[in-house]
C-alpha cells in the first residue's frame, strides 16, 4: 500500500481543508483587505490577526508549470507525466495545483476553473480550462 503524502492539517489550516471537503476553495483576508494563501495566523503584509475567510469564485489563470517525467514519490508513479502548476485566483492569491488537461495543451495565462477532486481521504483543489 503506497501512502499518499498527507498535508499537515493544523488548527490554523483546518478550515481550508474542511471547506474543500464541501467543495469550496477558501482564502484568507485581513481587516485591511490583504489576501493570501496558504492559511496562517497573521496577515503577512500588515501582521493583523483580524482575519476572515473568503470563498473563491473558482476562476483563475495559469502563471507557470512544470511537467514531471520521473516520479519522486511512488504515489505519483501512475500519473506520469503529470504537471504541477502555479495559478493565480481571480481574487489575487496564488497556489500550487494540477491542471486536469493533457500537458501539451497548457498555455501561459490560460483561464481556469476550479474542480475539486477526491484523492484518497482528501479532497484537493485542482483546475480545468475555463471556456466561458
Amino acid at each position: 500500500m503506497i501512502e499518499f503524502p498527507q498535508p499537515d492539517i493544523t488548527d490554523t489550516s483546518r478550515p481550508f481543508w474542511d471547506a474543500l471537503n464541501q467543495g469550496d476553495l477558501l482564502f484568507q483576508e485581513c481587516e485591511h483587505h490583504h489576501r493570501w494563501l496558504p492559511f496562517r495566523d497573521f496577515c503577512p503584509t500588515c501582521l493583523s490577526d483580524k482575519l476572515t475567510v473568503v470563498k473563491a469564485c473558482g476562476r483563475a489563470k495559469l502563471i507557470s508549470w512544470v511537467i514531471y517525467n520521473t516520479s519522486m514519490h511512488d504515489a505519483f508513479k501512475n500519473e506520469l507525466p503529470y504537471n504541477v502548476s502555479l495559478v493565480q485566483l481571480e481574487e489575487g492569491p496564488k497556489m500550487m495545483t494540477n491542471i486536469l488537461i493533457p500537458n501539451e495543451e497548457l498555455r501561459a495565462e490560460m483561464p481556469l476553473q476550479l474542480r475539486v477532486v477526491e484523492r484518497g481521504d482528501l479532497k484537493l483543489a485542482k483546475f480545468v480550462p475555463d471556456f466561458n
Partner: protein
Amino acid sequence: MNELTKMRGKYVIAGIGHTDYGKLPGRSTISLNTEACKSALIDAQIEKSLVDALFVKVPTSAKEFMYGQKLAEAMGMRPKLGGSWDQGGAANMALISNAMSAIETGQCEVALVCYADNPRSGSRQVYARPRGDDAVYGWFSTAAGYGLIHRRHMIEFGTKPEDFAQFAMASRRHGALNPKAQLKVPLSLEQYMNAPMQIEPLRRDDCCLVSDGGAALVIMSEKRARALGVPNPVPILGLGQGQTSAELHVRESLTSTEAVVSAKTAFQMSGFQPKDIDVIQIYDCFTVAGMMTLEDYGFCPKGQFGVWSKGGYLEIDGALPMNTSGGLLSETGMPGLQLIIEGVRQMRGVANLQVSKARNCLISNQGGTMHTHATMILGRCND
C-alpha cells in the same frame, strides 16, 4: 565616506582551502570540513591557535544539532564565537559578513568560514523532498522550483532553450579545461537540446552537479594580515545581501529577486559599477538562476541574455569571463564556496584559466529557490 564604503578593503580573505571534488565515499562532513580548514590555515600560513571564530554553513543533506560545535571539537578549537548557519547557498557570504562584523566590533580577530557535504556518496534525498503541503499535488524537489521560474522566464521574455544552453556552455567549457573539475566534458548545443528532461522545462545540463567536498576560508582584517605576514591576502571590496524569502506561490514576481538589492549594496561599498567588473563567478545551480543574477545585477538587459552573451562574451577569451573554473555546473555542485575560492585565485593571478589584467572579481551566491542572495567583489592581491 559612509559606514558601508569605509569597509572597502578593510577585510581580506587570507587563506583558502578545499578537498577534492566529486565522489568521496566514506568521508564524513566533519572530516571534509577539517581537511578544508587545515588547508586554508596552511595557505594563510597561520597557526590554528590564532583562530578564535568558526562559522560553519550547515551541511545541506544532513542538518545536525550543534554542528558548529562538533566541528570545533574535531579540530580541537575553543572559539570565542561560532556555530552553524542555515540560509542555503548565500550562507557563505553571510558568514563572511558576520565574521567582518564580529572582528569590527572586537568580538574576535581571525575567523574560519567553512562548508562540507557528501550528498553524492551519501543521501541526496534532500533534493527530492516534498515541498510542504503542496506535496499532495506531486510538488517535490529543489529542481522543480527552478523549473517553474525557468518556464516563467520563457513566458515573460521569450527566452529560448538555446539561450539557456549558451549559459551552460560557457561554464562547461571552462570546467572541461579545469583538471580538478568533477565534470570535464564540454557541452554542445546539440547535446544540450537532446538530453533528457526529468522535470520539464529543465534539461539535464540546466542542473548543477551533486558533489561531495569541503571548502574553507580564513577571514581577518587587512591590518592583521599584514602584521601576521600572510602571503597572499585578497581584499574584500564589496559585499551585499538580499532575501526574497517568499515561497514561489507568494512571490510577487518569479523573474526578479533581491539580487538587485544585494548587488546594489556590494557595488556601493566597492565604488564600482557593472561596467568596471573584469571577471565574474556566478552561482549557477540552475542556468536560469545564473541568467537572472546577471540581469538583476545590471550586466545583461532583462530577457536579452541570448543576444547579450552571444559570440563567447562570457567565455575565457570574451569581454566578461564567467565561472572560470566551471561553476556549479562543472567544477563541483558545492553550494558556492568554490566560486569564492576561484575568485581568490583570479585575484592572486594563479587561476587555471587566468584572466590577464583582471583587477577585480565579482561573485554571487544564492540559496533556496532564489530565496536568499549575496554578492561579493574582490580586489587584486597585494595591489
